[in-house]
């Protein structure tokens, strides 16, 4: 820990905000220690001799006269082996270690480094003495978990000829290499520190193009997010934001997952902690926890640390991106982060903007999402990594016109709009297909042709148009009743119903349904659309729509989502059966008509 420098005194305490005077040369966003218990805080405003400090721990019992110490360091995270499988609070204190030390409750004044100082890691160099390296180059690797090779990079501001590098078993503070010459020579350890409020540098941003496959049908097929892209999930309480975020954390084809529980429920973090070590990643065959980092600053934990939690999370995400990994970050919920900003801003007596939020709300939100992206990493060679950000938004009363949702929608490229009406009907995920959108759909669907099938996009558009027609027809039904519809229109309604119930609806808690590969998504949608097309032919041939819907294969289509990933060939079989069954109906109809005609002609 950094040495304390100047000592000042508290002059005011108001909730999480403390004002101190007499600090020696305080700087904005510097870390300070407050009170005799040395609580963690951060300078967020300077006026003359007075510094306003947001305190990351409960402030009960603090009062004027208590000491405050500067550290001369900005709030930073520790980056290095040991991040994976950790659960941290908003300022990177390991909650498991806090538990070991302090028991069931979070107590104050506990200092706790983010990375273990004792644990040894097996470092394998990949450069040798004499090689030239620049910032970001990989010096060597540590197999941090069975699925994650931790790449030790040349830290910022360091570069030159490698003087000395040694493999072996080291802690994160042991020197593993000396880089550079003379007075520029730097002793490199496996740990770096990075101030959380500053984005980590990269060479160049690229346009995202590859799908982040999440195994969630409505997302992957209808409103996909690209690797390096941004998405938001607004919705009223209980509409399924957290379940969607958890599903992405579980099944997305990312190398590293960063889940930030920002001002939400304690039990939801416990659920992740219990489930993830058990669940197996379909891509790697290893437990999901082996690629996951958790940040948990729940709603009852100090509000200032909640404000910091999203920055702590995204800085760790950027660090893994810089190694060349695809990182997916979920923030649940960004509204709680915004509320933390509002609370602190109110205590600072800043001029409020809309609904009491600070005037800089929009800027902060935009700057946060801007840290997502697909980038060429900073290094001498070519390396590409990405951070995908998915933020939940919790609009009061579900009203999307509120400031946080609006500020978010201005910057993100994918919008999954959740609706409570769908949730009440237990249509999950309750993503409203009429209001949601993805601006990546064209780019991403180009990849589908390669990954799955060239006709996927066309199928998807056809299904989408069915859903749109359905909503128009529903209006008519509401006004004049179902009789008013032609059989063609009734078929559209039935087709759309099948898309909704047999494709869009997906039960996160069913062992099979919880994850659907892109290939199975395609096959399932093709099956549904095949039925629709064949049924259209039948209706054109005057077959009663009721007879088409009565074929036993309809029930099988409804259960097709439960066909397991190992038996995907069953789709072809079923599709053939559907075509044959409806073909049979058309033939029979033709025969009947022919028979009817015979007596006339005879």
């Amino acid at each position, binding site marked *: 820990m950094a040495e304390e420098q100047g000592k000042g005194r508290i002059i005011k305490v108001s909730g999480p905000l403390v004002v101190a005077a007499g600090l020696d040369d305080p700087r904005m966003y510097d870390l300070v220690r407050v009170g005799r218990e040395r609580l963690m805080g951060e300078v967020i405003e300077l006026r003359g001799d007075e510094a306003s400090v947001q305190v990351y721990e409960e402030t*009960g019992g603090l009062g004027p006269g208590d000491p405050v110490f500067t550290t001369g360091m900005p709030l930073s995270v520790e980056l290095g082996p040991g991040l994976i499988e950790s659960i941290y609070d908003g300022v990177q204190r390991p909650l498991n270690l806090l538990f070991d030390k302090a028991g069931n*409750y979070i107590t104050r004044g506990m200092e706790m480094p983010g990375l273990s100082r004792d644990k040894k890691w097996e470092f394998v160099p990949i450069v040798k003495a004499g090689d030239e390296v620049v910032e970001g180059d990989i010096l060597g690797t540590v197999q941090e978990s069975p699925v994650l090779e931790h790449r030790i990079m040349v830290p910022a501001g360091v570069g030159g000829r490698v003087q000395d590098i040694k493999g072996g078993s080291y802690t994160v503070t042991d020197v593993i290499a000396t880089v550079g010459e003379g007075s520029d020579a730097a002793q490199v350890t496996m740990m770096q520190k990075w101030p959380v409020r500053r984005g980590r540098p990269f060479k160049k941003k690229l346009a995202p193009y590859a799908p982040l496959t999440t195994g969630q049908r409505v997302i992957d097929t209808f409103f996909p997010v690209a690797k390096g892209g941004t998405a938001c999930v607004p919705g009223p309480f209980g509409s399924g934001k957290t379940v969607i975020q958890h599903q992405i954390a579980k099944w997305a084809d990312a190398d590293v997952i960063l889940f930030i529980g920002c001002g939400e429920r304690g039990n939801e973090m416990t659920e992740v902690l219990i489930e993830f070590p058990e669940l197996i990643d379909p891509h790697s065959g290893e437990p999901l926890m082996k690629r996951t980092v958790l940040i948990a600053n729940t*709603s009852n934990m100090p509000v200032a640390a909640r404000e910091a939690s999203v920055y702590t999370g995204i800085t760790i995400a950027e660090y893994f991106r810089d190694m060349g990994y695809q990182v997916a970050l979920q923030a649940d919920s960004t509204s709680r982060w915004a509320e933390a900003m509002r609370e602190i801003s109110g205590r600072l007596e800043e001029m409020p903007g809309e609904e*009491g939020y600070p005037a800089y709300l929009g800027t902060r939100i935009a700057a946060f999402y801007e840290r997502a992206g697909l980038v060429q990493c900073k290094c001498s060679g070519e390396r590409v990594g990405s951070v995908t950000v998915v933020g939940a938004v919790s609009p009061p009363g579900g009203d999307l016109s509120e400031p946080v949702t609006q500020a978010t929608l201005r910057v993100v490229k994918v919008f999954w709009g959740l609706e409570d009406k769908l949730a009440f009907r237990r249509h999950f995920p309750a993503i409203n297909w009429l209001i949601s959108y993805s601006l990546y759909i064209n780019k991403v669907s180009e990849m589908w042709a390669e990954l799955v099938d060239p006709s996927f996009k066309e199928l998807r558009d056809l299904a989408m148009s069915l859903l749109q027609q359905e909503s128009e027809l529903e209006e008519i039904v509401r006004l004049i009743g179902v009789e008013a519809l032609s059989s063609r229109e009734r078929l559209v309604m039935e087709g759309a119903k099948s898309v909704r119930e047999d494709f869009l609806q997906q039960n996160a808690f069913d062992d099979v349904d919880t994850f659907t590969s892109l290939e199975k998504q395609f096959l399932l949608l093709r099956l549904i659309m095949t039925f629709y097309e064949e049924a259209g032919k039948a209706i054109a041939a005057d077959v009663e729509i009721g007879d088409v819907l009565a074929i036993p294969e309809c029930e099988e289509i409804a*259960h097709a989502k439960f066909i397991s990933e190992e038996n995907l060939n069953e789709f072809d079989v079923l599709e053939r059966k559907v075509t044959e069954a409806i073909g049979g109906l058309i033939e029979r109809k033709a025969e009947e008509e022919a028979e009817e005609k015979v007596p006339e002609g005879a």
Partner: protein
Amino acid sequence: MPIREYMTVRDIVGPLLLVERVQEAKYDELVEIEFPDGSVGLGNVLEVEGDKALIQSFEGTRGLDVSNTRVRFRGRGMELAVSRDILGRVFDGLGRPMDDGPEIIPDERININGSPINPFARDYPTDFIQTGMSAIDGLNPLVRGQKLPIFSGAGLPHSRLAAQIARQSTVLGAEMEFSVVFAAMGITFEDADFFMQEFRSTAAIERSVLFINLADDPAVERIATPRVALTAAEYLAFELGMQVLVILTDMTYYCEALREVSAARKEVPGRRGYPGYLYTDLATIYERAGRIKGESGSITQIPILSMPEDDKTHPIPDLTGYITEGQIILSRELHREGIYPPIDVLPSLSRLKENGIGEGKTREDHSDLSNQLFSAYARGKEAKELAVILGEAALTEEDKLYARFSDEFEDRFVRQGEFEDRTIEETLALGWELLKILPRAELKRVKKDQIEKYME
């Protein structure tokens, strides 16, 4: 720290006092306020700046003046004295005995704010609580350690419902008995008395602790009441290993008291005049529920709140719903139709249900059956709405069946007696029975083998 006494009150605004020339006042410190008539009330420090302390008085400020009021700083936060003897007792909203019993000889004094449970220390709630009520057990089951509020409205039978839950709840298989911690905030004497009589008549009183702040008690006191009650609950659950059911009623009055203080401080208000930190404040109450690894006790919370104008998007129910693990919503319409309990099952939700039900807990068909009942009932209600506009005749045959299903569902599944205690098997059997109204092909949420097993 010695007690410091001051007579330097400068301003009195609403429930707040500004005291000057104070030394070493601490944020959130407990104070005693001696009224000019000699009576003593309690308060705490909301803000300190230099030698000024801003204090909220739990007992209000009526009768205070600036020249004769004495303020004593106690050098610690507000605490509750606890021991096993709190069971069976009735306290006021600040935790002072108000029955005829003796003073509590404390084992411990605990700060009423508690500390946040480390998420890593939590154990996930997984034990099904049988409340004996189909609309809850079948569709929105309560789990040991859950926080599940009742969203109600003026004149709806939320008290009877909460009392029935308290009376009938058992943890299936373990036959654990619940202790009840009951906190009244701003409710009428009659409502509070209903609960007291209820606990007495079922002998549950020996396992209960009551904290009572009535409608004519000081409003600001209500800010402390749920915290005092939860401190008692944590003691019983995590030190004495008991299963504790906490009933908090009515959270709406709690929030109004908070708004009053916020307004007196001239804070920038959030929605509808409630403070911007209402979410965080409520979270520090509701999150004091749950289970902890290695502890046998648990806290299950049933907060009750009345929705102003029956509006679910009002900040109080809205923010509550964002924190709790679901909600039970009461419907005025069902109540008018004479259905008890008038639980509006569609917008009601238990988020922990998946972990509390199924094979080995309730029965393997429970989850699918409940999903099927939900969607069938939703469809039936839609059909009925359509029939209102277009007439019964405009419905398809299928829709007519759904409409009938929804009527019978309300009449037989939701409706039950106030003293009717249904086992989970009875509830599930009733659900399958009702599904017989619908065509087989419509039952997409349940599995074929379940249909064969439970419907034939």
